[in-house]
């Protein structure tokens, strides 16, 4: 729980303090991200952002940048063969009450070379979901991946 909070805090601080960097794709765009967000109210909004962190052998994170998921279909390149930590953030704000909140869904991902990953990012009626499906190199049978917390890095 604590690491999640710290990662989120780091992402928010990086974005808020002007130190935020847009993620630079590396190599082929192996993530196909389909995003659907709806706050369900004319007086509030929600936006989705992906934060990308590299994970070293000691499971330490190095922030690499963010991608605003502001289009229904986007492609992002995550280095194959290397462990990355992907943080999907849903940030909502209310125009009337001045209330803001954000919630995240994270996962470790080590993309296989040549594989593609379809990521569904959805926020609707205050329910959110991130689902990842891997299609093996050469277009084999896709399989759904379980999201893995940072704690799984040490196991």
């Amino acid at each position, binding site marked *: 729980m604590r690491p999640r909070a710290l990662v989120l805090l780091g992402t928010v601080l990086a974005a808020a303090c002007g130190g935020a960097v847009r993620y630079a794709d590396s190599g082929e765009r192996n993530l196909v991200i389909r995003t659907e967000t709806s706050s369900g109210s004319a007086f509030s909004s929600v936006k989705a952002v992906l934060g990308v962190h590299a994970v070293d052998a000691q499971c330490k994170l190095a922030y690499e940048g963010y991608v605003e998921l502001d289009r229904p279909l986007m492609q992002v390149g995550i280095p194959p063969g290397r462990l990355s930590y992907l943080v999907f953030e849903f940030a909502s704000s209310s125009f009337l009450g001045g209330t803001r909140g954000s919630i995240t869904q994270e996962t470790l991902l080590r993309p296989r070379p040549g594989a593609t990953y379809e990521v569904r990012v959805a926020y609707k009626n205050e329910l959110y*979901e991130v689902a990842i499906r891997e299609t093996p190199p050469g277009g084999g049978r896709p399989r759904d991946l379980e999201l893995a917390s940072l704690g799984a890095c040490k196991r």
Partner: protein
Amino acid sequence: MISKLAVLGTVAALAAGCAGKMPQSADEFRQMAPGAFMVQVQSFEVKRSPREIGETFRRRAPECLNVTIRTTSSSPGSYQVIDTAYKATVIAGNDKAELHLQQKHLKGVVNVYDEPKDGHYLFVVDATPAGPRAAKVQIIGPSRGYDVVVRAIKAWADGSGTACPDLTKIG
């Protein structure tokens, strides 16, 4: 902001009940919460076994509910930050599935009563057998302000969805 704080205070108070003591376990919550102010007990049947429901709880609850949330509210002359940690516990077997959700305010809310280490009990959900491949699901929790959590748990229980509730929207 005022309404949010009021609801937070009310939830803490309802968890404490009239006895001035906060439930320290899921069992105590089951005994104290029904009939308490602003507590609701909902029951419904689903065409899934308790084991299947337990598997879904096990898969979704930690990922969706073990989170720390920061909400900020601002208005002219005031700025409020509330940090809240949630902890889900799933007990799943062949004949019963349980989901407990605890809530602990880390910052921005002062507790009136002594609460369990992981926070006061917000929801206790029980799924018990109700015929072949069917279960009765009982949700005990706040009667208002937490609709998104109830919707998510109902969808997990009946198998219609696996989405997570946005816990920044509750209260």
